[in-house]
């Protein structure tokens, strides 16, 4: 118990600190904090699968996209639908639900989709699994962008109520962390981690790698779908925002934080988000300490790319070394 408490508390405290900082910030900068907290949810979702299995997945952003679609299409007021989604058909056109039900449905949609996809794909491993999950991302995005009977197609989700404020995002992040932590301490999480360390030995001990991976995949689909719901309630979103770039950024957050610990996932998401928003505001000119920084626009991504590569070269197992938080680090 003496080690479990700090392990669970550290990510929670970090999220609360971020939320309090956001509370103190001006309205313009608060958006950065909300986005950072939503990316914590996505990265924790990725972590539930990738961190516990050691198998890379490029497909999780398709669960985010599906969650965004579910919550977005259903939350738009009926009166607005003909204008924002002229081709949408059937009950999608005549139904509107509130904030919390739409988030719950988004999570459910992510989980169901992960189950459908995972049933065949979790038999694969290695590069084949990586490419197959990538294929899922491509197909999902392709269909959502072009099949206009079910949503806004290539337009953005406008007129979705913008209910994801600072505290909704923070509560979302805490929920995701709670789910991930409870899972990794559970019997199933431990079995899965055993298959990560040594698949042959785990299988010999009677663990079904397929079933455990499928379970983690569905759970991480749930968290990712939920994140999609949060995101569509935050800003007018288009499917292009939940595609390749987001896939790479969130994977980079996970790996840079340290892929094999929940603490790493949270640290990575918040660290990269902080860097990103700092550089974004530096492009508009920002004063820090006594001097002021004014970077030419577009340097943000370059600085980020270089820093990411440097972190990986200097600390290949991530900022946290892929370990959970421990008080022993402080005493040393």
């Amino acid at each position, binding site marked *: 118990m003496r080690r479990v408490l700090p392990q669970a508390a550290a990510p929670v405290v970090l999220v609360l600190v971020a939320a309090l900082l956001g509370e103190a910030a001006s309205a313009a900068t608060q958006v950065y904090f909300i986005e950072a907290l939503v990316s914590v949810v996505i990265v924790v979702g990725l972590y539930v699968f*990738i961190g516990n299995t*050691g*198998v*890379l997945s490029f497909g999780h952003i398709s669960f985010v996209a599906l969650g965004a679609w579910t919550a977005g299409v259903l939350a738009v007021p009926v009166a607005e639908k003909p204008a924002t989604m002229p081709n949408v058909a059937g009950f999608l056109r005549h139904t509107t639900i509130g904030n919390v039900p739409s988030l719950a449905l988004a999570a459910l949609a992510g989980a169901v989709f992960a189950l459908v996809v995972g049933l*065949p*794909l979790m*038999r*694969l*491993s*290695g*590069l*084949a*699994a*990586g*490419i*197959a999950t*990538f*294929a*899922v991302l*491509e*197909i999902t995005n*392709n*269909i959502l962008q*072009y099949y206009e009977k079910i949503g806004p197609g290539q337009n953005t989700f406008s007129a979705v109520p913008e209910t994801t404020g600072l505290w909704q995002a923070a509560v979302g992040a805490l929920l995701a962390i709670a789910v991930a932590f409870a899972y990794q301490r559970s019997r199933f999480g431990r079995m899965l981690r055993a298959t990560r360390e040594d*698949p042959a030995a785990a299988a010999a001990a009677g663990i079904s790698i397929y079933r455990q991976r499928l379970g983690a995949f569905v759970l991480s689909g749930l968290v990712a779908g939920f994140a999609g719901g949060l995101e569509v309630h935050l800003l007018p979103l288009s499917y292009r925002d939940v595609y*390749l770039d987001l896939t*790479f950024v969130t*994977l*980079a957050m996970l*790996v*840079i934080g340290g*892929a094999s610990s929940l603490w790493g996932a949270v640290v990575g998401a918040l660290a990269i988000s902080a860097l990103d928003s700092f550089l974004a505001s530096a492009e508009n000119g920002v004063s820090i300490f006594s001097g002021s920084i004014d970077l*030419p626009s*577009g*340097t943000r*991504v*370059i600085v*980020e*790319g*270089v820093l*990411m*590569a440097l972190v*990986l*070269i200097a600390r*290949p*197992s991530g900022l946290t070394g892929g370990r959970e938080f421990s008080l022993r680090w402080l005493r040393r």
Partner: protein
Amino acid sequence: MTVTWQTIADAVSLGGIYALMAVGIGLVFGVLRLVNFAYGQLIMAGAFALALASQWNWPLWAGILLCFAVVLALSEAMDQLVFRPLRGQTPAVMLVATFAVAFLLQSIALLWFGALGKIATSVSSLNTPWVIGGVDIRKISVVAVLVTLACLFALQLLLVRTSVGLHMRAAAMDFTTSRLLGVRANRVIGSAVLVSGFFAAVVAILLTVQFPLVTPSFALQDTIVVLAGVVLGGLNRPVPATLGGFTIGFASGFLGGALPTNQSQYLDSFLFAAVILVLLVRPNGLFTRHGGSAERL
């Protein structure tokens, strides 16, 4: 579906170009166990070199020379600055590092040339058709196929007839053992990276002829499709990888030409659904005989 000879010729030439990219990706994977996601950005850099050369009114040969110089220099820099320090890390770490490199190159291109990109006009004369027996075949389709065959033939000679090629094959099979037997790691990896860069430059030229508008996301989608194709074929041997690249390029070009317009927007869905199906049936690759790579990713 309407199938014309033009469609088939285009499909074959796209297959050829993708086969070259597949070889480039497969060679580096063979010696480094690294899936180079930044490969598309190498091609993009070469295409921008061509566009700049045509903007400066350089003669064609100078533009092509510049393209090769830029791509080879970038490959070498990637190897020295990123791949070498990360050698021996887990595949996930190396893959994310290549994401970072890809991001970096793309954003440099965005800053330098803007999102709208540049047009490379100097090589577009190859884009005109030949009329053979009442059938229009674009010259580039023929040139692409011939260049692909020549490159693959040269690569085969390199791999089979030279000691560097022997070392590369040995390293691809078992890196540790081959080092024990006297293969120099840096040399074999360096040469694989350079050969792969050479192919990237060739692909840059062939693609620029067909798609003269060069933007920062040039060849990005192609790289993703080729990566799928390479895994589909079987990543750890050159021949299956090449065949995988060709197959997916041919399928993509063929479907793109043959599907009616209201369905061709779902081209990617058809293509990747096929990829998933094949992977489920043959996870180690379509064209491998037994046992695939033991990579865990």
